[in-house]
């Protein structure tokens, strides 16, 4: 903008329109269209290939030329998934871990976010800066001490708790919800006090519902991250019955990639369905929230 103000004379609205310019604009439009459609094609084709190949007999799974339309409709790969790995157990584990962390984070982050945004207490600013500082610590930098803590002190190694408890407090979620609570006017509280509401009611009945778009974004992002987590289960879990499905899928592939492709892909399809369902319900909040720059703070 500043540069526009600096040089108003060089570009004026009286510039003659030349027909060649229009022609290039039209070519530009077509090139843009080709570009955006071909990227969409590239992001979608692997999905088509996964579904098509998961419905093909294992013997033909590497058939060249690749067939994009599933002609065999062979669902046996899907039943094989259930035979090769304890699929329902692992999906159940993933759900249990993910939902526990999502609900846990919603509770801890909405409480802390509300306190940092709207309650006054000595040390508030320092504590908030400490929370912000932990945002910069990468999970990998702390994984060895966390592993020792979980396995030697808390004796939670190879339990679902090892994947849930360290994830219950969230600096990111606290920061996100604080920004939401800050955006809600103080007048609501004054009105509620006149009505005789106590502090707890002001939080649960008034401010929490108003922050629900923020809660939805946190829920969807946390669900996606936790459901897809591979690193921490890899470190903490040994028992197949306790694996989340991300480990199950890689397990299906076999250590040296010896597993049948069609079966692995059937497993990927099955494990992705829950995330897609969650996304369909949450996408309005998620996309709008991300687009509104909620993550920019």
């Amino acid at each position, binding site marked *: 903008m500043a540069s526009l103000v600096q040089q108003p004379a060089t570009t004026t609205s009286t510039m003659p329109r030349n027909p060649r310019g229009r022609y290039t604009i039209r070519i530009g439009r077509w090139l843009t269209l080709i*570009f955006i459609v071909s990227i969409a094609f590239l992001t979608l084709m692997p999905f088509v290939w996964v579904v098509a190949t998961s419905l093909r007999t294992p013997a033909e799974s590497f058939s060249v030329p690749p067939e994009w339309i599933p002609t065999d409709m062979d669902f046996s790969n899907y039943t094989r998934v259930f035979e090769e790995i304890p699929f329902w157990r692992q999906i159940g584990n993933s759900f249990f871990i993910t939902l526990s962390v999502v609900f846990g984070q919603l509770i801890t982050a909405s*409480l802390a976010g509300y306190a940092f945004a709207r309650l006054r207490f000595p040390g508030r600013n320092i504590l908030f800066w400490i929370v912000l500082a932990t945002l*910069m610590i990468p999970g990998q930098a702390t994984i060895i001490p966390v592993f*020792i803590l979980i396995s030697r002190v808390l004796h939670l190694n190879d339990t679902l708790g090892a994947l849930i408890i360290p994830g219950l407090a969230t600096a990111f979620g606290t920061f996100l919800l604080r920004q939401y609570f800050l955006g809600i006017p103080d007048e609501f509280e004054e009105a509620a006090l006149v009505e005789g509401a*106590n502090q707890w009611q002001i939080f649960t009945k008034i401010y929490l519902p108003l922050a629900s778009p923020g809660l939805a974004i946190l829920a969807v992002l946390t669900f996606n991250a936790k459901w897809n987590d591979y690193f921490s289960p890899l470190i903490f879990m040994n028992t197949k019955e306790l694996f989340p499905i991300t480990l199950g899928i890689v397990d299906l592939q076999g250590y040296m990639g010896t597993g049948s492709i069609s079966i692995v892909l059937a497993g990927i399809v099955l494990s992705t369905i829950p995330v897609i369902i969650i996304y369909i319900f949450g*996408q309005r909040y998620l996309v709008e929230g991300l687009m509104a720059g909620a993550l920019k703070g």
Partner: protein
Amino acid sequence: MSSKVISQPGVYRRNPVARWLAADTMAGIKRQRMLLGYLFIAPTIIGLLVFVIGPMLGSFGLSFYKWNIFRPPEFIGLDNFERLAGDTRVFVSFRNTFILVVMTVVMLESLALALALAVYRMANKAFATFLRTAYFLPVLLSGASVAVTLGYLFNKDFGVINYYLGFLGIDNIPWLTSSDVVLFTIALTTVWRNLGFTFIIYLGGLSSMPGEVLEAAEVDGATGWRKFYRVILPLLSPTILFAVVTDVIKMLQFFDEPFIMTRGGPGDSSRTVVMMMYESGFGNLDFGYGSAIALLLFAVIMIVTGIQFYLSRRWVFYG
């Protein structure tokens, strides 16, 4: 609601705590809010202390020890860091990670920005929604699923990608089996999975730009590249900084895709820093050395982020 209580203050005045917190005085409400403040932040502060801040300090302490699960820890001073300085495999893993970060972030940011520019003022809303969903879909997959799937597609002899490249007269490319290509392949895989997320963030930045400014620029005759460089880019620069900083931090901690697709191979040519740390800490159970690598990575992340913010003063424009 509880107006009854306010009208009968005497009911709880006998209890000293209740008197201190009495809701019918401003001082009482202030004290209530203070107490509630500490109660509300307690779970988060305790959780972060136990599982983030404590372990961070623990990492620092551990890096001065030689310790595995079986033997008691032994203080060895700076030995781990000395070993680190001379460890060519660690050096190679940092080099690989930097190459991955640069390739991934350059492709990711330029593609996402180009797509967002093309989509954000599209008149056909249904088409725009279709494109948005198409770009975002891979974000829903786990790194593990993506690594497995694209690992098949990138197969040298049977992979779909080489099959179609064959029509263009391109010989089979050893995507995952040649040390010259493997980092590029992993970067492509990562771009495929993360493009939608970065795209949505740029779309948000573009949508929140004041429309009047763009129209004013158009009236002034700023079109095409000129409008992009002089108007859109400066207005979008805070969003670009946010996306680049977060993407770089994410990519410096790269693990899932190379671990599953190549196990760091061929040789060490796709081994990342976190894979080195995983191997030392959990493969060789050398917690001290693993912590030293983790600390070095943390320092590098801080320095790289700091440099980006420092440089951002030259190009980021805050309206």
